[in-house]
């Protein structure tokens, strides 16, 4: 078993969870202390290996897959949290279908999956929800190893197969017609989330059972949020990254304070030392130090919010506004093919609200397709006079111009007016200058161009520019 625990720790590290050697030692001791009874064993590993709340769900998942799927267990302690889950036998599904048919739900009689879904969600019928998840999995037919790489797509297909969207639509109508209360509707949404999650779980289990440790490692790697590309994130992961960005911002802020304190007495100020020495007849008794002046840059953010880049821009805005006190002034702009300033929205305290308002109220899109050329033209003409030569301009975008004129001279104008221009590109570098990407044309006007497509790179880049 010890070997298994070690292997498990290795797997956790692959998924991006930090585990030190002493933690592994603790885990071994703890496991020996409580034995291998499933629930206690799970607790023992969890409380010694997981030190961040954010890592817990990932840990649960890998624990389940590694110790249960791989070793062929059936019970699922990580899943037990769901208090509402009734313990009665789930039945083999057939009778559930029958009971649904028996009641003759819907006008067409017979229980289509969508109707079953509505029934299960309304009743909070967990056995039925689980049955639906299995049905969804079965409807996928033969699953190949390659599909593991496209997990989200596969889950989506499975959802469609059981009439997910039809079901959701019906639920919404029911909510309208029967005046369902918010509390109940929230519970429905929870049941839906449970079903979706269950489908994903079943799929993962399937992969691990059929393709072994290798598949599990792939799952672990793809769960590593820090290295996942921004445009591949799903809604849940976006929430998760938001939390991590808040954390990152706090870390950056405190790190700064510490450095500043330490580095305060840096270079000797010769001029003042000599002058002081006059008082003691030329002997420099006390050394005078130059005060470190922290340079606070003025920051101007130009954020592309078209399509997949929007997520990245949002993260960046969140990060910058959380550490706002590190800058003398921050101004931000959103653009797709026109550009609008959103700085004022961030005067509010609640960042999430501010982001929401900025994104919904600003006027940044005319055609829906990025037009960097036009955006630079507008910016240079309208906003540039108000930007100081001390500013650092950061452009977030993929430089995909949709074959429109690049108008590079306006970017040049901007670059000449401000201290420096930095470009963060959330696309992989290999994709630059292919198709309609014209990074190469804009790059000469930027002091630096960074590839910035996952959390890890964002962290690195931010640390480098601060």
């Amino acid at each position, binding site marked *: 078993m010890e070997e298994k625990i070690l292997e498990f720790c290795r797997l956790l590290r692959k998924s991006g969870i930090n585990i030190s050697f002493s933690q592994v030692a*603790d885990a071994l001791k703890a496991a020996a202390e409580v034995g291998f009874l499933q629930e206690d064993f799970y*607790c023992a590993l969890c409380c010694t290996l997981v030190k961040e709340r954010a890592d817990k769900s990932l840990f649960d998942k890998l624990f389940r897959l590694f110790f249960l799927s791989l070793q062929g267990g059936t019970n699922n302690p990580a899943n037990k949290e769901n208090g509402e889950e009734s313990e009665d036998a789930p039945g083999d599904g057939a009778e559930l279908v029958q009971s649904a048919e028996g009641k003759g739900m819907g006008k067409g009689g017979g229980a289509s999956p969508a109707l079953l879904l509505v029934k299960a969600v309304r009743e909070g019928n967990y056995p039925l929800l689980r049955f639906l998840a299995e049905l969804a999995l079965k409807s996928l037919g033969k699953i190949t190893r390659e599909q593991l790489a496209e997990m989200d797509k596969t889950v989506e297909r499975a959802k469609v197969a059981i009439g997910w969207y039809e079901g959701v639509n019906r639920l919404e109508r029911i909510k309208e017609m029967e005046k369902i209360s918010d*509390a109940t509707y929230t519970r429905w949404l929870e049941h839906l989330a449970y079903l979706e999650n269950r489908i994903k779980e079943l799929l993962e289990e399937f992969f691990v059972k059929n393709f072994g440790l290798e598949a599990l490692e792939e799952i672990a790697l793809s769960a590593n949020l820090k290295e996942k590309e921004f445009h591949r994130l799903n809604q849940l992961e976006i929430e998760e990254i938001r939390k991590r960005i808040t954390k990152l911002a706090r870390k950056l802020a405190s790190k700064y304070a510490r450095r500043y304190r330490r580095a305060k007495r840096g270079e000797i100020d010769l001029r003042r030392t000599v002058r002081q020495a006059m008082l003691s007849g030329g002997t420099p008794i006390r050394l005078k130090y130059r005060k470190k002046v922290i340079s606070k840059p003025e920051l101007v953010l130009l954020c592309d919010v078209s399509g997949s880049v929007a997520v990245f821009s949002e993260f960046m805005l969140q990060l910058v506004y959380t550490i706002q006190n590190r800058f003398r002034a921050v101004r931000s702009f959103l653009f797709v093919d026109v550009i609008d300033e959103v700085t004022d929205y961030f005067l509010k305290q609640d960042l999430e609200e501010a982001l929401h308002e900025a994104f919904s109220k600003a006027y940044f899109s005319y055609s829906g397709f990025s037009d960097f050329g036009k955006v630079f033209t507008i910016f240079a003409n309208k906003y540039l006079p108000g930007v100081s030569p001390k500013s650092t301009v950061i452009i977030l975008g993929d430089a995909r111009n949709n074959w429109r004129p690049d108008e590079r001279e306006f970017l040049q104008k901007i670059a000449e007016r401000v201290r420096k221009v930095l470009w963060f590109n959330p696309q992989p570098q290999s994709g630059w200058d292919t198709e309609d990407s014209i990074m190469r044309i804009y790059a000469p006007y930027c002091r630096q161009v960074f590839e910035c497509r996952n959390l890890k790179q964002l962290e690195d880049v931010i640390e480098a520019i601060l």
Partner: protein
Amino acid sequence: MFSSIEELQQKLAECEYITDRNVATVVYLALKLQKPLLVEGPAGVGKTELAKVLAKATKSRLIRLQCYEGLDEAKALYEWNYQKQLLRLHIDQMQNKSWEEAKQDIFTPEFLLTRPLLEALLAEVPVVLLIDEVDKSDEEFESFLLEILSDYQVTIPELGTIKALHIPIVILTSNSFREFGDALKRRCIHLYLDYPTFERELDIIYLKVPGIKQALAQQLVRFVQTIRKQKLKKAPSIAETIDWAQALLTLGISSIDEEIIQSTISILLKYQSDIEKISPKVSSLIPEH
């Protein structure tokens, strides 16, 4: 101390602290591995209470160190009793003692003012040391804690290293106001205390508000659990559920409706902005049976 997880859970329950098995397991492990226990979670879920109850259940003394910004070694660990040292020097002077002798005399345990941490290490019997709200302290203090937490010892320059006579049970609590360094987290067993489940909270209400009717208890706990899911500045804690239950019982109410909730909501929600957020929605948040 406790021979099994069940026993621990049982003992805690006897002290009116209800936990689920997972929590009990983690606490049990911290005791067995003699590691500090870092308890994180939202305000009012019973983190501090856990330490108090553990002291009660093990019949040991509770030494509490409340952390705050600016807390330093002098207030947490020890100070030299300056006045007493001065007096002593005065007497020494009258007795014409030499510098060497005087110096020997004034840095002895007699002149040491112990503060909570040192007290916990020097205690003749095992104690429970509660380091409350570590997240409020500064980073320097956090680094300073590391020696105590990993080796149960401290170094006092004038006296040398002091090792704990008995390894104390150490509980650290945090509301995650600030992130800790990895070093601190690595040294601890980690426990995340969340709001209780419906059944657990119901149990707590029955225990703490004796005489409450089942129907009312269920109704009010379900309501509290529902508003915890709303986005609030501060979600109601267990203590607030208890207060509310107590208030409703005192008012002789047997079933909650919108009017009653509106008039008592300030017991549950402590921020005006939260009240303003919830008030208009109350009718849709009342659970149906």
